[in-house]
């Protein structure tokens, strides 16, 4: 539908895939919006850009972005992206997926990709539960929270994702909520400009499935929690950045450089090929 009224961001979206599947009040749209703003502001080469997602509500993002994209099996976005990045290091490869996908079923892949410093970029929509399957407990569900599989309150300790990413070796680590749209966009721009394994956790409302069981019926109420609890503390200790009902520490935690896996590997290959 080219014409006078085409939205300036239409080029970034697959019109035929819209309307999206997300509920009203969901944070996923905010994340996609910030992502597209970042792409636009950086004037990224969309022919050299790949978005990979796993399975979950946020996992549909790969389908919505009008670049080369792949929707993998549940939990396997990172190893798939690893294959892409190593095969064609000139591509910018971004994984956008959920807390369950990346840190429960796919948790092992996350820590190893971070350890190897594969130059892929990972954005996690942390909505504290498994949205897609109807709101079960996940690896980031707070203690005592009610979900369909913790009807008496959660007794599992949640992951602190920014701490996990830092300890695993990620070279860029940040956390924002969907309330912090400008900071999030700025952060995604940085993530896209870094060379090494980079990670952003986006604390995101799932009012439909998580919020309503935990006294936050609407997206607005969830955002109100984020507003009250968020504290911006750049480069604070990620180990102390656990998310609690009272406090959500947001900001950048890590921004360092070290050689990426593909730099080291291709360096070796160049030497070996020359020797032959």
């Amino acid at each position, binding site marked *: 539908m080219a014409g006078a009224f085409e939205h300036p961001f239409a080029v970034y979206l*697959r019109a*035929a*895939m819209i309307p999206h599947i997300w509920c009203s009040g969901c944070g996923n749209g905010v994340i996609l919006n910030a992502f597209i703003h970042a792409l636009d502001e950086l004037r990224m080469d*969309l*022919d*050299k850009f*790949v978005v*990979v997602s796993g399975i979950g509500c946020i996992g549909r993002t*790969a*389908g919505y972005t*009008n*670049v*080369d*994209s*792949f*929707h*993998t*099996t549940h939990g*396997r976005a*990172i*190893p*798939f*992206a*690893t*294959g*892409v*990045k*190593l*095969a*064609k290091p*000139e*591509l910018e490869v971004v994984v956008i997926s959920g807390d369950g996908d990346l840190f429960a079923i796919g948790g*092992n*892949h996350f820590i*190893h990709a971070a350890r190897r410093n594969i130059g892929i970029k990972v954005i996690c929509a942390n909505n504290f539960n498994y949205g897609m399957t109807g709101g079960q407990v996940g690896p980031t569900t707070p203690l005592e929270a009610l979900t369909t599989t913790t009807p008496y309150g959660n007794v599992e300790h949640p992951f602190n994702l920014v701490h996990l990413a830092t300890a695993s070796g990620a070279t860029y680590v940040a956390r924002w909520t969907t309330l912090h749209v400008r900071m999030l966009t700025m952060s995604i721009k940085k993530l896209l400009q870094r060379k090494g394994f980079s990670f952003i956790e986006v604390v995101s409302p799932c009012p439909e499935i998580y919020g309503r069981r935990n006294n936050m019926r609407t997206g607005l109420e969830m955002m109100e929690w984020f507003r009250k609890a968020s504290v911006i503390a750049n480069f604070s200790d990620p180990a102390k950045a656990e998310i609690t009902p009272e406090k959500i520490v947001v900001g950048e935690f890590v921004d360092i450089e070290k050689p990426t896996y593909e730099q080291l*590997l291709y360096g*070796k*290959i160049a030497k*070996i*090929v020359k020797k*032959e």
Partner: protein
Amino acid sequence: MGGDKAVLTGVHFMSGDIACAEGAIAAGCRFFAGYPITPATEIAEHMAARMPEVGGIYIQMEDEIASIAAVIGASYAGLKAMTATSGPGFSLMQENIGLAVMTEAPCVIVDVMRGGPSTGQPTLPGQQDVMQVKWGSHGDYEIIALAPSSVQEMFDFTVEAFNLAETYRVPTFVMADEIVAHMWERVVIPPPENIRIVNRKKPSVSRDDYMPFMPDDDLVPPMACFGEGYRFHATGLTHDERGYPRTQDSEVQTRLVQRLCDKIRKNADKIVRVEEVMLDDADVVVVAYGIVARSALSAVRRAREQGVKAGLLRLITLWPFPGKHVAKAAEKAKAIIVPEMNCGQIVREVERAAKTTPAYHVPKLGENPHTPMEIFAAIRRHG
């Protein structure tokens, strides 16, 4: 990439695992992701040494789930890609094998079969995964699987597996066993110009007209790769020709899944390969594959020496199953003998194809494949 280092033309003495790795490199494989497991480890080790010499990528992943996922990613990025494993790792790969089928990612998976179930017998041979390779992932699908009987065939069939994977955009399997993998034999590697290499079809239309899952007449869609400017989407969900999810549409599901099956079934006559030895007048037909086929051949020869009209039908392609060849051999035969290193797997397919001719399974588990005498005794018993 790689130049003359890629094809080690000449006569060699090598193990099956090494021959398999060399076959992959000769076929153009430039990406290997794997996780160590006996008896396939030497494939990974050899790839780790050889890939950099030809400008290719070797990566040891955190497990087999990641290995096959990375292989699919590399395939979509445009490289010929492979992984190699054995039973336990093969089980872990099953979900993403389905993803490779659904997204039509050309790739080669080597399963060096050992004794199972579970951790089973890491250092001993088996043929217990020959049904798993066909049915192991959920849903309806078809794949291609080859069964080498010698070290030379570990080289040749790996080349062939890549060609088939690229032709049909389907995961293709080399179903080896511990003996062909660890055995050392003479291998002749031909000059590059004598090795047939097939590459996937590329789209000939512009980005706006490209539909990643719109098949040609052969039912196989041309394949764009990431970074080539097509900006396409692929998903493991049921999808239409544009690659867009259409999970509620039974017509789309029928069209897609039927085509995924038909692109192999309708091309089966082109894919299927067998070796037929003395079948013309055979009263007793031995159907065998892999290392067991070598014992079967000597058993058949011995039977002939003693005046028993025996013949061998060696299955080179396990899947698609060479049912027509079995049916033809069964027409004149009184009995079919199926020796396998399992409790009875391929024999089920043989029975289906052989109709009224009885098929007798000769199981063998544990340490060694059947001796020629064991198969000969079965020929005698039923002949």
